[in-house]
């Protein structure tokens, strides 16, 4: 048999192990994983809790943004209504879009992932439980503060797309726009944290034997989802940074009179914004694929086709961003490329839809509430997809763009593609996390009201859009016959809301949260999340031999519950899970996991505080919060990366796995690599902005800093990476008394700071100022990014020295040092590229 890691797959034959498990093993497992109670629940990090909080919070934002939509529909029901004054309406529609996209849709799919994935992969938890806790609390606290701005009339009013120059300081002098930029900025950071968690989780914490082809389709969807966030979100992070720099310090990125360009924002925003749609849709599609299979009691037809569809969507969706810009007057050739890619991306959608239809045809569908939502979702999504093909046709888009036709299109796609599947998932997976299932009867009411309401609301909008009604209007004049259509839409919106209300009643009556006495496998699903679970997930971690293990091995649940598989108890007396290899899921080592801690929660609160206080220009409290946040994060990290006594332990059936692994096999290394990809993407988008502005307005560009300065900058960066590498190398050698790795690393970080300092100095000496032109702004932005990374490098040096002094940097290899070395080497590389590229053009 082929092996990826040297693990012999024949060992799987030892499971299920015969015989009884020792007395007290299960009790110990329960004790180790038991959750904090009362107020202490804030310190919980287990995915059962964090996932549930996350879903609940995201749903709260769905309701809030939905209420905004209802008020807007009242305002538009008749021409020239006075329900919402102009300013308030503009804030309402901005908040509706922003909250739905950033505070509901992405967090919701991520939340469902946090809740479901470990269960589905039979991992004890996600690989970085404290990171998910941090991501959740930062999102929740920050999101609530952000939403509250509406009550003070301070909510952003530039649209969820925030196009400058309208959102520049000249035309939006208030702090409303800053709320958007800073509020969204860190919600993006929280999304990225979650994505790193999910990618590493799917690739490295699958149950043994769960090879790529046996991975549940939902895990595939989440893998692609995570990678897409990692590639797409940096673009909008950079965009928000640039716009905030322009607003705060007058750096003209988007100001055409000084060599900026308003369209740069649109490129940055939509490079994120369109993949965003698929980031929302793919996880939902994964859920649909899982549920269709269960509801028809048959394996998904064309599983590999759907996997391919996910992968293809993940790629091609990055080639369609400019179809939001067909009317900006781009050259025909560019427009054509984006039109073609927009067509191409609908092929994977077709594959998914026909795959579901084929599965329905093979199996015997049951007509319960999840199935209804699935069918309603498929039909609605197809309608949205087809209007999507229509607007991918450039000339048609010239008419439809920014009209109500688009409003109808995007709501069909998002409600059909994500909201209906989400409700199906709520009904389907509630028995996993509640002691009672939801009601079939109320559920049917909820579905039919929502489905009817949805169609009644949005079908007429296609028409009124083609009758000339633009989007984002707070009112319209009478006499164009838009009145009747708008009134119908409003009635539909309230019908839709009534459906949501029915669902809420159902939840209030039947939902009872539990982690260990859930209602069980009501619908007869075949994947691992339906194994009996406690807070530790499954008692033992099964060997996976097929895609629907529960269908193929009826005894599996019993064996797992009796502890006859991997890791029947705790091997080290700590929280732990098995890390497996990425392709064939062969067990590699035992990961020791951190338990409950207040630090992620406090860190998140202070992070949110930093951004929010910064927005309201309370600088001193804000920076105090920032420092506290850093301290909290360092304090939480301090507990991690510890050795346990036993270098390797028995994880069941006599199979021994190491408890501490360093280097490219460790999950920490993977997470750091992904983080570096995120940073690298921010850098790439920064370089794109630099060359883009040069291409648009070269006449504003002056001669760059002289090349001689490179003679100082490049060696400094070279020294930084060399010293960092040396620190790691010397740690592995026995005799390193004088040059302790801590000191070497510190020298590396200082070299890094020298490099960026020299580069900065040479640019200042060249006379270019950041507020002078697009060139100045982008050059100093790139330098600023590099300086920030270098500052983090210095912080790391302090952290490493502190650990070193406590003897926590262990030989021969140590994860904390490894990861910091990676960081410094990357930063040095980026710094060198920055220095060379910024001098490449101009003059």
């Amino acid at each position, binding site marked *: 048999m082929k092996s990826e890691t040297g693990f012999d797959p024949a060992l799987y034959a030892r499971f299920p192990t015969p015989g009884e498990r020792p007395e007290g093993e299960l009790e110990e497992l329960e004790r180790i994983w038991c959750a904090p109670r009362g107020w202490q629940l804030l310190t919980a990090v287990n995915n059962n809790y964090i996932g549930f909080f996350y879903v609940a919070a995201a749903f709260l934002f769905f309701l809030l943004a939905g209420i905004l939509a209802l008020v807007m529909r009242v305002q538009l029901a008749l021409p020239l209504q006075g329900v919402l004054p102009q300013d308030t309406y503009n804030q309402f529609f901005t908040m509706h879009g922003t909250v739905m996209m950033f505070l509901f849709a992405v967090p919701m799919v991520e939340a469902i992932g946090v809740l479901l994935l470990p269960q589905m992969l039979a991992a004890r938890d996600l690989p970085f439980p404290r990171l998910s806790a941090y991501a959740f609390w930062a999102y929740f606290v920050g999101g609530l503060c952000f939403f509250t701005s509406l009550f003070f009339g301070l909510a952003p009013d530039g649209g969820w797309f925030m196009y400058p120059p309208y959102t520049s300081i000249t035309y939006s002098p208030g702090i409303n726009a800053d709320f958007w930029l800073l509020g969204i900025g860190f919600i993006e950071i929280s999304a990225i944290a979650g994505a790193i968690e999910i990618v590493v989780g799917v690739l490295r914490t699958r149950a043994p034997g769960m090879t790529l082809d046996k991975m549940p389709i939902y895990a595939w969807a989440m893998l692609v989802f995570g990678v897409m966030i990692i590639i797409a979100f940096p673009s909008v992070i950079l965009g928000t940074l640039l716009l905030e720099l322009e607003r705060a310090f007058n750096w003209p990125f988007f100001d055409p009179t000084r060599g900026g360009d308003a369209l740069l924002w649109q490129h940055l925003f939509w490079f994120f914004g369109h993949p965003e749609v698929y980031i929302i849709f793919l996880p939902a599609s994964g859920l649909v694929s899982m549920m269709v299979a269960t509801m028809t009691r048959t394996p998904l037809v064309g599983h590999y086709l759907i996997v391919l569809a996910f992968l293809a969507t993940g790629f091609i969706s990055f080639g369609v961003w400019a179809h939001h810009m067909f009317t900006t007057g781009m050259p*025909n050739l560019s427009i054509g490329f984006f*039109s073609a890619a927009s067509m191409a991306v*609908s*092929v994977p959608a077709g594959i998914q839809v026909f795959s579901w239809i084929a599965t329905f045809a093979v199996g015997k569908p049951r007509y319960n509430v999840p199935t209804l939502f699935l069918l309603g979702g498929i039909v609605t999504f197809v309608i949205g997809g087809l209007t999507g093909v229509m607007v991918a046709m450039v000339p048609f888009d010239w008419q439809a763009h*920014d009209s109500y036709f688009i409003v109808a299109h995007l709501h069909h796609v998002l409600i059909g593609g994500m909201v209906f599947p989400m409700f199906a998932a709520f009904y389907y997976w509630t028995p996993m996390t509640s002691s009672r299932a939801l009601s079939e009867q109320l559920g049917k009411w909820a579905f039919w009201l929502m489905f009817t309401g949805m169609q009644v609301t949005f079908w007429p909008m296609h028409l009124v859009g083609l009758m000339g009604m633009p*989007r984002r209007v707070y009112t319209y004049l009478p006499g164009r016959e838009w009145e009747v259509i708008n009134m119908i839409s409003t009635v539909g919106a309230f019908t839709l809301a009534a459906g949501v209300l029915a669902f809420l009643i159902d939840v209030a009556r039947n939902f009872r949260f539990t982690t260990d006495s859930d209602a069980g496998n009501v619908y007869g699903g075949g994947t691992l999340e339906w194994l009996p679970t406690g807070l530790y997930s499954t008692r033992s971690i099964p060997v996976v031999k097929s895609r629907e293990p529960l269908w193929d091995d009826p005894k599996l649940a019993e064996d797992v519950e009796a502890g006859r598989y991997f890791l029947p108890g705790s091997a080290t007396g700590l929280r732990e899970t098995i890390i497996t290899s990425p392709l064939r899921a062969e067990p590699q080592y035992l990961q020791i996991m951190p338990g409950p801690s207040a630090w992620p929660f406090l860190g998140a609160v202070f992070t949110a505080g930093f951004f929010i206080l910064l927005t309201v220009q309370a600088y001193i409290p804000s920076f105090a919060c920032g420092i506290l946040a850093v301290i909290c994060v360092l304090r939480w990290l301090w507990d991690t990366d510890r050795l346990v006594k036993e270098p390797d332990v028995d994880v069941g059936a006599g199979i021994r796995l190491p408890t501490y692994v360093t280097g490219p096999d460790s999950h920490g290394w993977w997470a750091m690599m992904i983080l570096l990809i995120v940073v690298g993407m921010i850098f790439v988008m920064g370089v794109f902005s630099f060359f883009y502005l040069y291409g648009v307005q070269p006449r504003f560009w002056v001669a760059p800093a002289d090349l001689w300065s490179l003679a100082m900058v490049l060696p400094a960066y070279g020294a930084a990476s060399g010293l960092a590498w040396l620190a790691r190398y010397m740690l592995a050698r026995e005799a390193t008394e004088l040059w302790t790795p801590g000191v070497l690393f510190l020298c590396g970080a200082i070299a890094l700071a020298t490099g960026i300092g020299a580069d900065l100095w040479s640019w200042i000496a060249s006379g270019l100022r950041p507020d002078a032109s697009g060139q100045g702004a982008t050059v100093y932005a790139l330098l600023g990014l590099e300086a920030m990374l270098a500052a983090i490098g210095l912080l790391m040096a302090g952290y490493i020295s502190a650990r070193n002094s406590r003897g926590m940097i262990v030989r021969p290899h140590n994860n904390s040092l490894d990861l910091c070395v990676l960081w410094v080497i990357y930063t040095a590389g980026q710094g060198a590229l920055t220095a060379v590229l910024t001098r490449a053009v101009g003059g």
Partner: protein
Amino acid sequence: MTSGSIFAVFDPAGPYAGSITTLAWVLIAMFVAVLAVVIAALWIALRGSGRLKARLGGTRAIWIGGIGFPVVVLTALLVYGLTLTRHLTAPMPQDAMRVRITGEMWWWRVAYLDPSGRPFMLDANELHIPAGRPVLLELESNDVIHSFWVPRLSGKLDMVPGRRNTLPIQADGPGVFAGQCAEYCGGPHALMGFVVIAHEPAAFDRMMAARRAPRPVPDERGRQLFRSTGCAACHRIAGTEANGMAGPDLTHVGSRRSLGAGILPNNRGTLAGWIGDSQAIKPGNRMPPYKTLSAADLQALAAYLEARK
């Protein structure tokens, strides 16, 4: 105020909008056909006979329905769309009439250009064109992004600060065509309308000639008032000392069909009302209210402006 057919995109008035309407009908047919296929397939999958279900239940169905069929349809559409794009953006004849329209918060600056590209006549919020002849619009913006959209004449095109976009339009016959700003530009974006009026070519030439003819001396009292009240700081009236460029050009304001960028009928009464308190009519617009004007002055100003044909 606004006028014209309510069916906008479905009732094109010229070739540029017309070919898009044809495309729209083709796309709608595609929409209906594909939706019908999907719903039929879903119906068979759920309720069909065993034989039909068996044919649908397999990867072959996905290959045909999910890959083959879309590839064929989309290739055809892509070729159609790209060809039409090229056709619609083909260069205009050199001698075509050119007009520069500049987006402002929240109105439109209109400048008729001579063959050398210099403005020879200024106006606002209304465009007069000859029927049956193509007209090239140069679209610009002085502040934020706006979008020019008169659905019965052509698709929309954005007005981006720092850039100049060109849009060809043509009306086949005389008529009045309503438009509206289509890119959110803040504040009263919803009340930023526009009107295109197409004339018989002969009538159009007469109108332009009349506008360019030497103007009779305007009434002295109104002119005085226009200056002393401060109107002239923002508004221009050709042939007088009023030369402000911040607000709409009022040289021909009396001949406009609407006030406040396509939102209010234009007559002496509404002119007076607009001057007195335009904020009550179009909240957020840039013109301050003049509530302190005396009755006689307001009357005289309104009469003066109404006479600027």
